[in-house]
């Protein structure tokens, strides 16, 4: 077996915020009827997280579940367990109109943290990132400059810490974009 690596291979940049490749993350796309009790139980079993509310991410012990659309969730699990968890989800959802797919290697995963983190994201996406509007646990699929991405604000911690997911094919672009937006002399000072 080859050794799995991320698209940006541990890249890191510090300016008004710290942008870093957040490493390998198991991700499972789950589509189905989100009001189904079977699906709810399957999500809980796979990620330890409750079913998230609209526009939210719910974090469990060793995973998380994020609301992607009215019929889609993104399940986060440890990278090494993604294949097994996908199979377990498919097994648990047998008979349901649902689909679970392991997309871990199709995604890039970043962390943006520090005092300027809100500003870095606000520069590149059409989302209100003020502390009143975007609170911990909020999850948003949107556009970052020229590519689609999803990001959320992590709970707790002294300073803001965002996680961002995008397609792996644009991982390099995304890192450069974030690093550019986090340039040390680019502070706007809005938030």
């Amino acid at each position, binding site marked *: 077996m080859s050794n799995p690596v991320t698209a940006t291979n541990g890249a890191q940049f510090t300016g008004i915020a710290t942008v870093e490749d957040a490493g390998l993350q198991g991700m499972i796309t789950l589509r189905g009827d989100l009001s189904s009790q079977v699906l709810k139980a399957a999500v809980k079993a796979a990620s330890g997280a409750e079913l998230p509310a*609209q526009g939210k991410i719910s974090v469990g012990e060793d995973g998380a579940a994020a609301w992607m*659309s*009215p019929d*889609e969730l993104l399940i986060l699990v440890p990278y090494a367990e993604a294949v097994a968890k996908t199979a377990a989800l498919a097994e648990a959802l047998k008979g349901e109109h649902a689909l679970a797919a392991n997309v871990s290697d199709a995604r890039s995963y970043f962390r943006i943290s520090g005092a300027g983190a809100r500003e870095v994201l606000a520069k590149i996406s*059409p989302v209100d990132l003020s502390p009143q509007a975007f609170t911990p646990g909020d999850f948003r*699929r*949107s*556009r970052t400059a020229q590519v689609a991405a999803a990001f959320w604000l992590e709970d707790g911690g002294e300073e803001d810490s965002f996680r961002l997911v995008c397609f792996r094919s644009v991982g390099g672009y995304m890192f450069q974009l974030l690093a550019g937006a986090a340039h040390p002399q680019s502070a706007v000072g809005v938030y």
Partner: protein
Amino acid sequence: MLILECPYCGVKAEETELAAGGEAHLKRFGPGSDEDQFHDYLFMRENPKGVHFERWRHANGCGKWFHAARCTTTLEVFGTYSAQTYEPPQEIKDKVTAKRPGWSWREFSDGAK
């Protein structure tokens, strides 16, 4: 800048997050229809100055199609609604009527004579 609220994910999406899908509520004329009907279905589009109904897709978001009622002159948005409908819901029609009494668009209008 156009800001539409996606009825599926509740996000107030700005224009660049959306993809325009052309005119709403087209009635398809396929096999079995005559040439004029097919021609009109294929080519004849509304180009109103005022109230307009359109399809939009929340492309950089939840990915769902939805409908929007808006004014082409002022960019005012009257409302957005589900794509699973053949005509604007009464609630949307009422909102348009409140702002633009006497409006009409294709076979839809404010209902007043």
